[in-house]
């Protein structure tokens, strides 16, 4: 069981990312992550230590996500099919080893954001507000909020890539 715990530590960030990229509601995604962890425990005896753990955990996550979509039939367009989920799970699993480095880089990049950009991110990610609500509070149009969120994510993504590249080259950007 300790082995499973150690392996889960590495898998959890990418499993969480897969879930929150497909289940848009943060709270539902967090619930789902709990269910996946629970299933990992109950099925631990079925895990073959000779095989990689992350894809195994991803398989459980995929199953749970599909179950979630089944329960959300009224909103079918929000869900991906299993083929797409499989592609995404594979791509997420490949990032397991770099997840912690990306998190560290994000911490530094986020520290450089200020003002309205930071405030919009806070409203979206801390308070879980949607664009319409943010637009009303910030005196913006919803379209401007979408643009700002897109722009800020792009800035952060570029910043992370620069920092990761610099780390591999031994310097700080």
């Amino acid at each position, binding site marked *: 069981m300790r082995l499973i715990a150690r392996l889960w530590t590495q898998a959890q960030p990418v499993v969480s990312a897969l879930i929150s990229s497909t289940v848009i509601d943060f709270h539902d995604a967090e619930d789902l992550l709990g269910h996946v962890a629970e299933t990992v425990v109950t099925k631990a005896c079925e895990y073959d230590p000779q095989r990689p753990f992350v894809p195994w955990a991803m398989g459980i996550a995929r199953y749970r996500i599909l179950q979630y979509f089944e329960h959300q039939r009224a909103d079918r367009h929000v869900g991906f099919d299993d083929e797409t989920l499989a592609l995404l799970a594979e791509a997420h699993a490949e990032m397991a080893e770099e997840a912690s480095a990306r998190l560290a880089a994000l911490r530094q990049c986020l520290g450089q954001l200020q003002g309205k950009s930071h405030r919009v991110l806070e409203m979206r990610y801390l308070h879980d507000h949607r*664009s319409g609500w943010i637009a009303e509070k910030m005196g913006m149009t919803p379209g401007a909020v*979408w643009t700002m969120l*897109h*722009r800020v994510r792009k800035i952060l993504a570029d910043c992370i890539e620069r920092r990761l590249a610099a780390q591999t080259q031994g310097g700080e950007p």
Partner: protein
Amino acid sequence: MSETDINPQDFQWLVSRHFDGELSPDESTELEVRLKGDRACVRQFARASLLHDQLRTMFLSNLARESMTADAAGGTTGQTALPKARMIRAGKIVATVAALAIGILVSVNLTLRSTAATAPPLAVLNAEIATQWSDPNVELLLRRGDLPSGPLRLESGVAEFAFAGGATAVIEGPAVIEPLTRDRLSVASGRVIGRCSTKQARLTIVTPGAEVTDLGTEFGVAVGDDRHTQVAVIQGEVEFVAADQSRRMKAGEAVAIDARGRAEQAAYVIQDFSKLARLMPGFTEPELADANLLADPEMTLAPVFYGAAERSSPWRSTAGHVDLVSGPAHSGSVAVRIRALGNPMWPLVWQDVRTGPIAGQVAVASVWAMQPSQDPLTARQNAIVKIMFLDAAGREFAGAERHFLRAEAPKNHWVRGQIAALAPPGTMALRFQVLLNARGQKSGSLLVNDAVLSIAKPKGPDALKMK
């Protein structure tokens, strides 16, 4: 980059709006088609989703860290550090991993959840004084109004549970208990006081040697390490069933029952239980209360965010969740409103009061609260009134709280919540708090008004005590 600079066909733009839940059905279909048709798009999506998820983690972690920093900096600007620190999503990871490591499934469920309404638990935490649970996640669940499955180990302190059947049980640690049904409690060890304040309420306490059922009464049950059971009737009558007999007992009677179910009279037990019975009074002894220590006790000044430099109000609050509203108040014409707004934690309003050394004195906190019909509490949300004990450095080191005003209560009706506890050695200040157990729900609010925080010397050896 303006709105007009965006190319709607830009894949990143599509992904970004997907994460915000803003795609139309056609756009969602387009996103999926592009993911299936291009592995580069899949990798790009995965990187973006990791960023999306880590941003959520980062903001929640920062909130908790700010809270802890403010708390460590001193009493006046502190937020409740410990609960928030436990509530951060990073804590969820730890809790989950811990659960995996020790194989306790329930710990996984204790992780931070937004909790869609589910069936009400068999029993909920009603109040606690200086409790220490063997698993900190158990405390988290209990404070959120959930009930972990399986036995609960209370290491120290006193906890009161309200059972769905209407009874309450006060448990003194160390104890191992497990609510079995809406009116049955298993006690493997420790001391418990059962109370049935209405005719409909029933409570049966199941021990290794006996089953004790109240008949409209207050009674105590203790189970020792030797699995012997002691039963004492404080008020009314109880019936106990042991291996060799079944009998009724009246107030003032007590028996000792061994693990095989053999019972004998044991009147000496009564005195211990009468002390425990006073640990969680259903309500106050008003004579305990001296002068109100709070500034602006009517709560007429708008609370300010705990990190703000502004000092226009003695009340501090969780940013974005607390404001002042005009209209019906318990007294006056304004009240403080605390709103859930999707907060997975406990948005709150609080005030710190420097008291000097008050160890051994009883601190009493009370507040009036109501749920407005415009935005009533949702399933299993509730109000909490809490006293935190602070040391000379302004750090919280003990606390006591009462949960009250649940969603089932009448709307637009003011009720008072109160908690009393003995100040432990080292107490130099008190923190008065009113919290909303928001449970991640977007709706639900409380109006609060007329707060009281007072201290008084305990009255005699049987007065309120705190371990």
